[in-house]
């Protein structure tokens, strides 16, 4: 029997990789929590989106609403009928050592009575945001894939840890 809050798997890149994935996710928890520290090989500076897909689903079955603040603005944004859930990464032209951090809750990920909702926070060197995404499927989540939107690589040092949280 799993503990209440335990790591399922961790990936820390020792060389660049095109994607980071977790598959065969056990169905014995209630929620999943993922911490993803990401930096892209894109040579520009600043932030970039990250493509998160669940169960390898590339259909337009995702959407989200977010609120953000930066040093110059505050605002809200939305995506509708999207092919991915967008997280954030730092691009490689940014000062060394800077990685965007995404703290991602996938609530009731194995519950067949609900669509899957992803509640997360993003913190980068230039903005912070809170976001909520909907994956319009009642299927249990068995895999998570993170790819760079321009088909570039994740750099050495990117780390992603997946945790399972088990309710009584």
């Amino acid at each position, binding site marked *: 029997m799993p503990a*209440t809050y335990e790591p399922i798997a961790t990936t820390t890149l020792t060389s660049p990789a095109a994607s980071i994935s977790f598959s065969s996710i056990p169905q014995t928890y*209630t929620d999943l929590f993922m911490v993803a520290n990401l930096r892209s090989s894109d040579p520009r500076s600043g932030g970039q989106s990250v493509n998160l897909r669940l169960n390898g689903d590339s259909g337009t079955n995702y959407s989200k609403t977010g609120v953000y603040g930066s040093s110059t603005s505050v605002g*809200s944004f939305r995506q509708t009928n999207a092919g991915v859930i967008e997280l954030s990464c730092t691009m490689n032209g940014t000062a060394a050592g800077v990685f965007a951090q995404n703290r991602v809750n996938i609530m009731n990920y194995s519950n067949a009575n609900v669509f899957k909702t992803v509640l997360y926070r993003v913190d980068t060197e230039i903005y912070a945001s809170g976001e909520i995404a909907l994956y319009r499927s009642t299927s249990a989540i068995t895999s998570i894939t993170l790819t760079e939107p321009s088909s570039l690589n994740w750099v050495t040092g990117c780390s992603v840890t997946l945790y399972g949280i088990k309710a*009584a």
Partner: protein
Amino acid sequence: MSPILGIIASANQGQFISTTSYESIATTTVGAGGASSVEFTSIPSTYTHLQIRAISRVTGATANENLTLQFNSDTGGNYNSHYLYGTGSAAVGGAEIGSQTTAIVGRSSGANLASGIFGVSVIDILDYANTNKFTANRSLCGVDQNGSGIILFESSLWRNTAAVTSIKLLPESNFAQYSSFALYGIKG
């Protein structure tokens, strides 16, 4: 020992670590008859913080509505809340100040949305047993419905120094079936 399952990457560590500092205290899932409230009682004072992780839907004819709470059966005007939210087109700040009878801590989806859509809330109740201070909460919550929705940062205060021993979660209408509320304790 749990196996390391299906990790695809150039490197992985996959260390199995068991921790007892974050424990499940109780879980309530609403049945077919719905519920006017959900309450956790006899909460042990042996933790430092509490966390509630919730998916919630209400029977009211709305897109979404507030999820609120009361501590220790206190129905008096002893609560205040502040929030920052985004609607997809605007970011808005606001507050429920003065003598409020509940704290706003989360968001539920309503009956106007497709049946599989639930609001989600992660609510942190900090230092809940510390009798030297009022109890403060923070939460991240929201509902997305593919074309509209809301995401909220919430904070609230219960102006009472008593240790929290019970938590009542309240909808504006009634909780619908499959709404689920899980209470966890975090040791310091």
